């Protein structure tokens, strides 16, 4: 881009005395990795792209669904069914063709996390589950990368900057200094079950973009060692000072080899992990017969599951409709495998040892994906 056009596009931020041409050059040189391309990440991606962040990586293996559109404002009806990472790249490129956008249409795992993180200066966590959040936190500590964190629950949001020293004497705080261990699956509801107002991830995601720009350009006071909470119902902001914990370091893998051995999914669901089955096991159970498969999604949820016979009982109605279940083996499934784990809890509570209850790991989405690759 020639200098004239650069000044034209970014003029309104360059004329800020604290920001200036130097701030713009820092942004253009910066490399940030945004994990997740959902509700929080949409505004993060839009503002970082618009501001001229030189390289932006996007990691997400999900596709756009109709019920994403009320909060994931990058996407349109025509994007439904397409890869979020790919669609985001296309849309953001139109917003600012001068920057580099790298889509990674894959799930973040212990195998690819360190390799990916190595290419970027700042990591941004816009994911929607504890397993990935703890994995990202640990990888950032291990690789000494600043982490911009945001999370929401119903009407409230949290924002922080982890693993960043404002001055050399500061001790950097990370997520495990607040919550050393992940909660078990089902102890805390995620968006798919708990509901969220569309504007909330917009607000929190925009704050995350703002924190990222402050980190890159060195202006203002980033939320390092601070946790900001925002309540969308009463507009109350509560900002807490965080302190390092002595035991935190011992919970984080100390090197790459130890990180590769970590099983974050297990960490987050150790109690009920044994009730999860994979696609192969599931197919085997169906082939053998004598199994009741229950779709615990809401009636109109996609994708349609018509490849095997199933009983449709939404999660909220499950405990009242157990008379529909006849077999001694039950498999519950939902979209991505979260609600079906709750279904296992409910059904195990009702039937006790009398029936074997399983949850299809990764839900119908993962099952359909497996089927395609066979």
């Amino acid at each position, binding site marked *: 881009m020639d200098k004239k056009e650069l000044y034209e596009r970014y003029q309104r931020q360059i004329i800020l005395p604290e920001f200036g041409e130097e701030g713009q050059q820092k942004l253009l040189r910066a490399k940030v990795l945004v994990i997740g391309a959902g509700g929080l990440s949409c505004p993060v991606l839009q503002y970082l792209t618009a501001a001229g962040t030189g390289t932006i990586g996007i990691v997400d293996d999900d596709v756009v669904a109709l019920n994403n559109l009320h909060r994931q404002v990058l996407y349109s009806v025509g994007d439904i069914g397409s890869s979020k990472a790919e669609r985001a790249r296309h849309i953001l490129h139109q917003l600012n063709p001068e920057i580099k956008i790298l889509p990674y249409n894959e799930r973040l795992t212990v195998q690819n996390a360190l390799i990916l993180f190595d290419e970027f200066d700042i990591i941004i966590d816009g994911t929607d589950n504890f397993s990935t959040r703890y994995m990202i936190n640990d990888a950032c500590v291990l690789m000494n990368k600043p982490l911009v964190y945001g999370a929401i629950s119903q009407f409230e949001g949290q924002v922080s900057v982890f693993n960043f020293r404002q001055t050399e004497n500061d001790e950097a705080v990370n997520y495990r200094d607040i919550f050393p261990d992940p909660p078990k699956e089902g102890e805390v509801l995620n968006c798919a079950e708990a509901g969220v107002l569309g504007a909330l991830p917009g607000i929190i995601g925009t704050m995350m973009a703002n924190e990222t720009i402050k980190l890159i350009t060195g202006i203002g006071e980033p939320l390092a060692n601070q946790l900001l909470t925002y309540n969308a119902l009463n507009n109350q902001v509560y900002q*807490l000072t965080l302190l390092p914990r002595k035991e935190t370091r011992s919970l984080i893998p100390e090197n790459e080899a130890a990180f590769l051995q970590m099983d974050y999914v297990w960490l987050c669901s150790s109690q009920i992990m044994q009730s999860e089955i994979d696609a192969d096991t599931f197919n085997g159970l169906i082939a053998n017969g004598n199994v009741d498969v229950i779709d615990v999604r809401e009636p109109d949820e996609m994708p349609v599951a018509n490849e095997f016979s199933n009983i449709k009982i939404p999660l909220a109605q499950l405990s009242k409709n157990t008379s529909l279940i006849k077999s001694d083996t039950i498999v519950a499934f939902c979209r991505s495998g979260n609600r079906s784990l709750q279904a296992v809890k409910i059904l195990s509570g009702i039937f006790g040892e009398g029936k074997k209850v399983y949850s299809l790991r990764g839900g119908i989405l993962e099952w359909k994906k497996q089927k395609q690759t066979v």
Partner: protein
Amino acid sequence: MPVNIIIFGRLADIAESSLALENVADTNTLVKELHILYPALADAKYVIAVNKKVVNENTSLTENSIVALLPPFSGG
């Protein structure tokens, strides 16, 4: 004078989002009292902050202390 307590996130489904307790000398006592009032809190995950500072150890409270209980959020 009571100690004021603010409850965040879905913990407010279990306990009142704002309440006050008399005669609580420190955070351990406060937690014990809260778990008696709201037994489901004992199973929930949360961190405690006193006067906007997260505390990891038992911390003494005075009559003006404001205690916050924050659960982890995972949504995105």
